[in-house]
């Protein structure tokens, strides 16, 4: 191994969060973590495991159940020079903290004529599939992307999690890192050293000539499963993972659209008004003349997330729906 090479090991999505935060905290005493049960318990999803043991009460703070004050704590500390990482346990609770997020964190800099910097990272965990019902399963990233001033990342694997988390924590703007519950246990090779994946740069996960699947978060894995099935029929899918939803990498997605001429957009969130609607509009604006079929959107139906597995299994988009969508835009 040369000096420029770093060791790479298999790490889980969860470890990519806790381990990366630990590395960042070792480098910068201005970084602290606050949230519900993030201390000795390590977070209900274990994404903060080990931090309290290493950094103690001063830098890893168990907060009351006070989502507004948790985000406010981060805002006040950030605007006075610290670099907070605050956690909102379930993404559904983002809604409880929405004023602090949308009216405060997102807008202070602009309202103050550029005077403020807001190096605040908010982590949260969304997604359905665990029968956690309507208030513990939502994917609300589109709401956040609609707020000028916020940046939003949605890593689909442990490697991206580490690189995007590094960029978010080092950002001087408020960022939201969306974790997905069903990705927590997934793992992939991840370099031990810190590295940054720049915000706003999509990843072409898989190249292909027949159709582009733009997939968000966990849907990247579902798209890969669908692509493999379709490959057996000679259909070659290109899969683009935006990774950052705000700012959005229009160029990469439009370039792919110009190459394959057929697009399927998929996310787990409710389809109506979802981030896929924005993507569809951008692709239409950037590559209208290249499209051979209407863009096919896949998202959840317009209903709250149901509790019963018998309903939830039909609610969450999956590989089968992606495969059907691809066949539809290809007409075969």
């Amino acid at each position: 191994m040369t000096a420029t090479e770093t060791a790479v090991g298999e790490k889980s999505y969860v470890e990519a969060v806790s381990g990366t935060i630990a590395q960042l905290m070792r480098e910068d005493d201005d970084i602290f973590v606050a949230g519900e049960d993030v201390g000795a318990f390590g977070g209900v999803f274990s994404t903060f495991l080990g931090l309290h043991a290493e950094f103690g009460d001063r830098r890893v703070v168990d907060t009351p159940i006070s989502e507004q004050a948790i985000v406010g704590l981060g805002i006040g500390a950030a605007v006075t020079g610290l670099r907070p990482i605050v956690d909102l346990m379930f993404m559904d609770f983002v809604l409880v903290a929405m004023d602090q997020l949308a009216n405060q964190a997102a807008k202070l800099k602009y309202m103050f004529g550029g005077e403020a910097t807001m190096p605040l990272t908010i982590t949260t965990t969304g997604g359905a599939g665990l029968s956690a019902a309507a208030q513990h399963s939502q994917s609300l990233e589109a709401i956040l992307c609609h707020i000028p001033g916020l940046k939003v990342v949605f890593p689909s694997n442990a490697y991206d999690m580490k690189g995007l988390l590094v960029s978010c924590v080092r950002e001087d703007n408020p960022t939201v890192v969306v974790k997905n519950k069903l990705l927590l246990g997934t793992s992939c090779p991840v370099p031990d050293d810190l590295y940054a994946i720049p915000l706003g740069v999509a990843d072409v996960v898989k190249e292909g000539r027949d159709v582009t699947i733009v997939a968000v978060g966990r849907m990247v894995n579902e798209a890969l499963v669908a692509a493999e099935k379709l490959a057996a029929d000679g259909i070659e899918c290109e899969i683009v993972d935006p990774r950052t939803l705000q700012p959005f990498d229009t160029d990469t997605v439009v370039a792919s659209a110009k190459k394959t001429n057929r697009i399927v957009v998929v996310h787990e969130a409710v389809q109506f008004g979802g981030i896929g609607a924005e993507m569809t509009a951008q692709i239409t604006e950037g590559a209208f003349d290249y499209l051979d079929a209407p863009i096919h959107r896949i998202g959840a139906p317009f209903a709250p997330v149901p509790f019963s597995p018998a309903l939830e299994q039909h609610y969450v988009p999956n590989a089968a729906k992606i495969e059907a969508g691809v066949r539809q835009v290809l007409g075969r």
Partner: protein
Amino acid sequence: MMDISDDVLRDLHRRMVRIRQFEEGAGKLAEQAKLPGFLHLYVGEEAVAAGACAALTDEDQITSTHRGHGHLVAKGGDFRRMMAELMGRATGYCKGKGGSMHISDLSLGMLGANGIVGAGTPIAVGAAFANRYRDNGKVALAFFGDGATNIGAFHEAANMACALHLPIVFMCENNGYGEFTPREKTMAITDVVDRAAGYGMPGVIVDGMDAVAVYEAAVEAVARARAGDGPTMIEAKTYRYYNHHGVQNMGVQYRTDDEIEAWKKRDPISGLEARMAELGVMSADDATAVWAEVEAELGDAVQFAEDSPFPEPEALLSDVYTVMEGAAR
């Protein structure tokens, strides 16, 4: 101390036994992987729901929490529909759409368990407002945990209820923890009820392991509310025997075994049974008969739930809105 009739004692006992058995039954089913989703068990805290709901009429309303089965059982919930809901069946209280965390029965005035901590309290304020507005004599009672008193919704609700002088009771179940974090880490006061004074309502501390004590405090608070004398806050000191959710501890030790055992020694049901035996109100045989009756009720409910169909996929899209006659869509 008020004069508690034998019937009230028997009523409190039955309500608690129903809660205990339902929850133990649910815990077992969860361990057999028969219940999807989260399960927040109420075991240990039975005296609070039983004492509070025994002080209410069937028409009075309650709002509940993520730990809501006990509240619904105490309000008279039907085991069959509850168990079916926990199993995600179409015959459940919420047709399988809500599950454990959203279980509700509007006909019993149970305005829903709640997945958002603290979110039930403002809703109870609204129910209390409507009661006064209609002058119907009903009272609303909000159940919430110690941890919930750290969230803005609780404070806004408490203040508004007092400012508007509404017929409401705030019933805090202080079990010493919010999830895995002890209360001491998240508030600088020992007695949650200290907060009541800041809003201008009386605050009462009761032993939450004693259904009679909870009942007495609740009767007084409900009477105040019904008489138009405004809100009261009651803090019941209690304890949950099982984990925050599910049955087993989750690897990380956040409570000592000694602490758990010490609370179990003050078990609300055996405590009341001993007292009733002493008073000659209930013999050991009588008590056994109640347990057996409830066990049969539970067995029937589990069977009903297991025999019930799952909702059809089409149900996914119904109930999002109330369908308006004549509307375009």
